[in-house]
């Protein structure tokens, strides 16, 4: 059974998540702030951490960084009310495997946790849209790594379909490829987003609002 930990500072939301997820997963720990969270993750060693983005003394980025610093390997699924590009991109770049908004229904969350536990990437339509924005244009810097700093046409296609609201299964059907292939495209895009050294990417979210 997949071992899941919950990090959220809202008790009610955490209770709701617990009752939703406990039917499918083993809930091994809960925390409501950054220091508690990294402590809890280090002791309870969950497979997946469902983590709120904004916590009282920091963000999910801090939780991920502290967990990595302790040498603990686990997968993070970020869950937030925020749709803001900066939040989403910074958490994904810190190493989260997926991002869901709190508007997602129970089924989506359960599906996402399962997917993340298997090492797959989870894209909400909103996140796919941000990714398309982040890799937009034909901007290639001389020092940029073209393999990392651009999406392949197929990856772009998959992202567009995700942004249009299609599930992996539907995308596989439309592109007549296997679900596994769709998943590997999604994982590749996530990896590019995390590894890309294009410095625009880091500043992108902020700049975007000035356009």
């Amino acid at each position, binding site marked *: 059974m997949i071992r899941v930990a919950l990090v959220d500072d809202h008790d009610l939301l955490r209770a709701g998540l617990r009752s939703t997820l406990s039917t499918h997963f083993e809930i091994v720990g809960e925390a409501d702030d950054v220091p508690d969270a990294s402590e809890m993750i280090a002791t309870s060693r969950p497979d997946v951490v469902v983590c709120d983005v904004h916590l009282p003394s920091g963000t999910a980025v801090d939780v991920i960084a502290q967990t990595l610093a302790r040498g603990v390997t686990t997968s993070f699924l970020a869950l937030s009310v925020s*749709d*803001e590009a900066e939040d989403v991109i910074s958490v994904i770049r810190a190493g989260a495997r997926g991002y869901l908004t709190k*508007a997602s229904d129970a089924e989506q969350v359960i599906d996402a946790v399962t997917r993340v536990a298997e090492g797959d990437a989870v894209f909400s*339509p*909103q996140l*796919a*849209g941000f990714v*398309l*924005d982040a890799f*937009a*244009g034909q901007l290639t810097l001389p020092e940029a790594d073209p393999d990392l700093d651009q999406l392949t046409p197929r990856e772009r296609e998959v992202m*567009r379909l995700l*942004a*249009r*609201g*299609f599930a992996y299964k539907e995308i596989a059907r439309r592109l007549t490829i296997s679900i596994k292939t769709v998943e590997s495209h999604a994982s590749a895009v996530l990896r590019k987003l995390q590894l890309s050294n294009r410095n625009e990417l880091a500043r992108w979210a902020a700049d975007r*609002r000035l*356009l």
Partner: protein
Amino acid sequence: MQSPPFPPSAVAAPRWQVPRLDRDARWVGGVAAAIAREIGVQSVVIRVAFVALAVVGGWGLVLYAVAWAALAFASSRQEGRYVPRPKAATPSHRVAAVALITVGLMVGLLPLTGSVFALVVWPVGFVLSGMLIAWTRSGEDGSIVVVRVVAGVVVAIAGIATFAFSRIEVVDAVLALIVLVTVAGGVAIVAAPSVVRMSRDLDSERLERTRSDERARINAHLHDSVLQTLTLIQQQCDDPVSTRRLARRQERELRGWLYNRPSSDDEGHRLRPALEQAAADVEQHTDAVFDIVVVGDTDDLDAEDVAPLIDATREAMFNAARHSGADQISVFADRGVDVVEVFVRDEGSGFDPDDVASDRRGVAESIVGRMRRAGGTATVTSELGRGTEVELSLPLRVSDAGKVAR
């Protein structure tokens, strides 16, 4: 010569370090504070010593300037933490040492004062301090640095002038005047950082006021919107449909206010606010929920150009909300360089396109016809049981496309 064989890590306190200029405790350059910290006495003792030496024809100023230059040079090259170590056993020993050294210097320098001073030391002292002031970087921004450099150079030139004049023995009054002016100038430059600090304090006060205005504005907004809605929801909690609608509308409005504030005034110039507005319109009449994703949204769209697209999108949203039975409808808009594409998709009941009776004018007229008249296209794909997707595409005029900064 052999160096003592201890590894650096084994030594708790480092050997003698060059003192750092103590910028936090400084009056002028932090020299006195730095020396005091190194020796282990109150900085006032060193300051008194410098003043006493300055009285002896100005040697204190020279020493100060030299020490300042040396420390500033050394400090800039040092990394790591500076741990001062008091140099003598007791505080009174230290004070006595400083006093003796000061008196010794005074006595030693006194004979030189009469002749050398008027001719060399004073002018050189002024030149040195002028240059130091000009080159001391105190973290100010461009224009202030320029002013300080110019002022410093003026002091330096004045110093040189004094030197020249005193050599050819011009009238004492002129000399005194020049000296007076240079001293006043020097004092003004030394005081400059305080003046800057004062104006900075004023700035931060202004910033604080702006912040509290902003807070008041946010409070007012939250009161008018969120609190009102919460009250309404409490009154109507028996009616789940309208409660949900109210909450949804408020959420959309609050998100728009939080994340898209700049464009809320000129709706239509960006895609997102226009689509949000369309979704809000449809949500008024149905209980569908729209998930809107926009890519490449820039604010240079001509509201009139995209109006047909927005209207067609609203119509597609309305159809999906009314006929599909799906509770979540995805709207994806992609602003390309020369085209805008919008996809409205539901996972509802769907329909057989061949089956649509000619009386269903809604799609034909308000979506397909509208897009065609605007120079775009509309495609409706649907499959029974698999939902419906409306694909809208509107080419942008070249002049618009040229403006896109992507």
